[in-house]
């Protein structure tokens, strides 16, 4: 009897999971399938199997003034820059918190924890006006430089470094006459590279997907990032070109799906680690 109820319960759980999985994946699947179907096919009815019109859709997508490849390169450049800057400086800050003892350290760390809980995006108007005074509007600098101070990333970096820092190794390097910054670069960074990689994945994906800040700061079309192009794709030029709209959306999403397929382990454990404090 005990065995039977467990089996029944297990069956129901699998059924529920399967239904939930269907809900989770159907929109993404429809997006990818429709990216390969012609507008005519899409208008004729719903379909769940890929067709052969992807290149056609691509021709229409780039043939109407929307520079998708340019947007792709812009997004790539911006996301890689943000990733390098935020990972490097977050690890440097986290390293200072883990290895050194300086007055105000605890206050600084608590302050970072509070920062994670504040809606900083809501100061965007003051940010914009200030950037325009500095002449940094319509410039990627206004998007890259703020990522030097990424509170969430420092928090993760500190959690990670605490588990991998080997103080004896640092002391040994000091005896060998290495400078403090040199120790960080040559001893710490190699040891911390798996954590740095996880931080990089998060920084890259967040920047790749970020719509709001570039939308406020960037104004010239040739600097548009992919999410901004997605927004312009909603305009009249593509109104009835369903196939190419789906393809445009798919092109922004598929790189992230590929990254996730390759590194999902890092991402899932990163989410778990960022949340379990103390």
């Amino acid at each position, binding site marked *: 009897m005990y065995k039977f109820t467990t089996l029944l319960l*297990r069956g129901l*759980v*699998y059924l529920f*999971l399967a239904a939930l*999985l269907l809900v*989770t*994946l159907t*929109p*993404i699947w*429809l*997006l990818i399938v*429709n990216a390969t179907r012609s507008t005519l096919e899409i208008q004729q*009815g*719903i379909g769940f199997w890929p067709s052969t019109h992807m290149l056609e859709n691509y021709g229409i997508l780039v043939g109407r003034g929307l520079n998708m490849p340019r947007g792709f390169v812009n997004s790539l450049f911006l996301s890689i820059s943000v990733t390098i800057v935020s990972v490097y*400086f977050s690890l*440097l*800050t986290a390293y*200072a*918190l883990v*290895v*050194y*003892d*300086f007055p105000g*350290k605890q206050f600084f760390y608590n302050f970072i924890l509070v*920062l994670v809980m*504040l*809606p900083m995006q*809501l*100061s*965007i*108007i*003051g*940010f*914009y*006006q*200030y950037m325009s005074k500095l002449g940094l509007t319509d410039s990627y600098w206004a998007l890259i*430089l*703020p990522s*030097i*101070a990424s509170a969430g990333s420092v928090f993760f970096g500190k959690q990670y470094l605490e588990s991998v820092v080997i103080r004896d190794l640092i002391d040994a390097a000091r005896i060998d006459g290495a400078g*403090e910054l040199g120790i*960080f670069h040559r001893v710490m960074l190699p040891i911390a590279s798996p954590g740095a990689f996880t931080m990089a994945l998060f920084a890259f994906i967040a920047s790749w*997907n970020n719509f709001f800040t570039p939308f406020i700061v960037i104004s010239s079309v040739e600097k548009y990032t*992919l*999410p901004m192009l*997605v*927004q312009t794709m*909603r305009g009249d030029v593509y109104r009835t070109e369903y196939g190419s*709209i789906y393809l445009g*959306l798919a092109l922004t*999403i598929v790189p992230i799906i590929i990254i*996730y397929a390759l590194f*999902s382990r890092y*991402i*899932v454990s990163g*989410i*778990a680690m960022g*949340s379990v*404090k*103390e």
Partner: protein
Amino acid sequence: MQTLAKFRRNYYGFLFILPFVLAFLIFGLYPVYNTIALSFTNTTLMSSKAEFIGLKNFERLFADDVFLKAVGNTWLLWLLNFAPQIGIAMLLSVWFTNARLNIKGVGVWRALFFLPNLLMPAAVASLFFSLFSFFGPVNQFMVQNNFLPEAMHFLQNKTITRGLVVFIQWWMWFGNTVIILMAGMTSIPVALYEAAMVDGATATQMFRHITLPLLKPILVYIFVTSMVGGMQMFDIPYLLTDGRGAPSSSILTNNMLMYLKFSSSQGHIGAASSVGVMIFLMTSICSLAIFYFLRDKDSAQTRK
């Protein structure tokens, strides 16, 4: 001598956090100050003259129904997605960590449920706009299978549009919550459950008296981060319909209202700032209050 060397070395701590501190002061704190300062003025992007007008911007906000409506919408859209999000995530986490159920492939299920979280919100909103458009696949499916007599304008119906925003937010975030909850559950010592089992506790009792109390810090974390994110909701409601919260401002959020004032023909950044300040205050007070009142008392003592 040694203490001096130690002092010198710790001085590097200051040096290493300096870039963060500077970047924060320049790109984090000053914009907050600037937003507050602007909110007391009638600054626009179009004219150079700006006057101090005291609390006028705020008075206008509260005299205007739109602001209160946007605040109400934001809370509603967040709460309606948060409740099922935490509910389903809790259910899945309990199942995934239950030894008796012994679900196979937990890692794969979890990874797949998390996938929507990584997708670009702007693209997701556009995708759902296309799926639910008049000639879109959802209408085709409903009509072909006789669920609907004829295609309907989903995105002109207030309830359906709101429901769609709620669904998208839920869809994007429940997998994330599963991962966090499971991390919390697996860190609870197994011995506690074993002891409870020896005492004859039922699964429900163990959940209520062991899992939930020990999960409290994690739940507070999820609650606060989700709320802070929810109060800044922009991409999905902005791109799902016309960017003004159509139909009839039903999905107009705080952040969208701020953007509308900012992007109005005059560029009323003074008025836009006042929206930002109000929402910043509301969210910060709520999140710090939740954190303060619900935090784990023991860890608060050890933190010093």
